């Protein structure tokens, strides 16, 4: 009896230790967004003041920074540009990825293996390796300082991973399904649309989230390819253009950053399982 009690005591202590460690991690992880949100609701006076504890709002919350964001800055233009870029990028990337993943996973043909490996290697190419030649190419195409240049280049960051992800999902669909469809005289496009896509919905959602997040969060390409305010997207607009003006611009800056973060964070909150399945698809295969 005593031994069992001791063991239970040890287990409780271990669990307690686990919660302490997790608590420390959560403080580390959540402090920056908390601090950003908090600052965005503080008055300039309070941000400036050095009195009291800064981790709570003492002198009353204000929405003025958000109001100013919409009325006195180009924030809405950046938001609109981010949407205008992200929507076509997601659509284009998904179409390319679905077609390629279907062909690579189902229509075994000479070269499929090579292309599969190439897709994986291209996925490993980071944006900071190629932004300079892309800058020149975009200049040649006359797309410099145009948000549409991003619609052109972003798919190259998305399609390789999305294709790779979808190959995994398509490969898990039983082969009997497509044989049955082929016997019924369906062509490949019909088969893809009517059989594969409905079954692979979780994979499609995971890939779409990935595409959205990459496009919405992109910073280097828009920083390199666009510079005037009417062409900037949320990331670059918030970081480079909102800084002007007030000495104590922190409230407005944080309000902008929080609003710009919201779409991907909300998407994550509502579709967490898909998000994580996409994220871990690589590792569980590895």
């Amino acid at each position: 009896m005593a031994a069992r009690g001791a063991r239970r005591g040890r287990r409780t202590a271990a669990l307690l230790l686990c919660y302490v460690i997790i608590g420390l991690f959560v403080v580390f992880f959540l402090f920056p967004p908390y601090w950003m949100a908090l600052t965005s609701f503080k008055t300039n006076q309070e941000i400036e003041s050095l009195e009291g504890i800064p981790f709570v709002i003492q002198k009353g919350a204000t929405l003025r920074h958000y109001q100013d964001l919409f009325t006195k800055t180009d924030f809405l233009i950046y938001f609109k540009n981010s949407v205008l870029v992200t929507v076509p990028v997601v659509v284009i990337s998904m179409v390319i990825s679905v077609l390629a993943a279907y062909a690579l996973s189902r229509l075994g043909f000479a070269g499929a293996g090579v292309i599969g490996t190439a897709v994986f290697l291209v996925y490993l190419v980071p944006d900071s390796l190629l932004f300079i030649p892309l800058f020149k190419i975009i200049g040649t195409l006359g797309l410099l300082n145009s948000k549409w240049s991003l619609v052109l280049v972003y798919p190259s960051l998305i399609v390789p991973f999305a294709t790779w992800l979808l190959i995994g999902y398509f490969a898990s669909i039983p082969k009997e399904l497509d044989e049955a469809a082929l016997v019924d005289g369906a062509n490949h496009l019909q088969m893809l649309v009517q059989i594969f896509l409905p079954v692979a919905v979780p994979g499609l959602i995971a890939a779409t989230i990935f595409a959205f997040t990459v496009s919405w969060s992109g910073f280097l390409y828009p920083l390199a390819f666009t510079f005037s305010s009417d062409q900037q997207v949320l990331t670059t607009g918030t970081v480079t253009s909102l800084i002007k003006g007030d000495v104590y611009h922190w409230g407005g800056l944080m309000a902008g950053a929080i609003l710009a973060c919201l779409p991907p964070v909300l998407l994550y909150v509502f579709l967490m399982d898909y998000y994580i399945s996409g994220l871990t698809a690589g590792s569980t295969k590895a």
Partner: protein
Amino acid sequence: MSPNSTAVDVAATARVRPARSLRLRLRSRSAVAVLMCLPLLALIGGLVAYPFFYSIYLSMLNKRETAFVGLANFAYLTTRETFWMVVRMSFLFTFLAVFWKAVLGFTLAVVINALPQRGQRVWRGISLIPWVMPLALSSLGWWWIYEPTHSALNWVLVVVGISPKPWLSDPFWAKFSVILVNIWYGTPFFMITYLAGLKSIPVELYESSAIDGASAPQRLRYITLPMLKNIIAVTMLFSTIVTLATFDIIRVLTRGGPRQTTHVFGTYAFELGIATGDVPLGAAVSLFMFPILAVSAFFILRGIRQSTA
């Protein structure tokens, strides 16, 4: 088929027809397949392969891009003290960040995995927030946290009796600060992959070792680590690539300063190639990343092949 076909012929064609139609079908199949891969191939060719070779070409031009200078840009870079600072900072940044992300991510994964099943989802969900926020914007938040007089970090230091630090204006603390943000951002990714790995270890292994009286550290040493060896390695290699290619954090927090001490390959290439307009030199700086990326990619590919074989 001959018009005067006999019964034998009919039987023969009956045998042949499926074979031929299969061959036809196969042929159309690979035609369809190539067609369906065409957009992907165009994308890779036009936006990855071509720019890569184009950047090699660019790196061999003079500043005004009017003359071919061979490897002169690379040679020039190696004579610049700033460039070697960039190389050292890139390696320091990558090494320290990947190391700590792996250690902290592993710790957090093990801890979350030890919790009752129901709580795991919540903690895992919360822990991924830094990874989900666009990095340029959360870096902006960190920029404000590091602000020396009115912000959080120095306030805490003063309260606990430590002298405030010039987080972003002193070379040592600036390096510390940018690496810390990368650890904050990347630890969740390590946690999530390691957690998925932990879940894939058969429970029976732990049960039988418990019967044999193995202690928790022994189980970690002899079961968990060997079973996760491959995932740990591949995740670290993958992160090496992404971390070496860092741009957002440093661009937002320090722009490479103070006195160029926090530049990494990406931000230095941007500074030279885009901000000051020396495209060939910027392209050359970027290309210095390539050998490390290639080696990492090779080992990642090998690691994945090994575990699927």
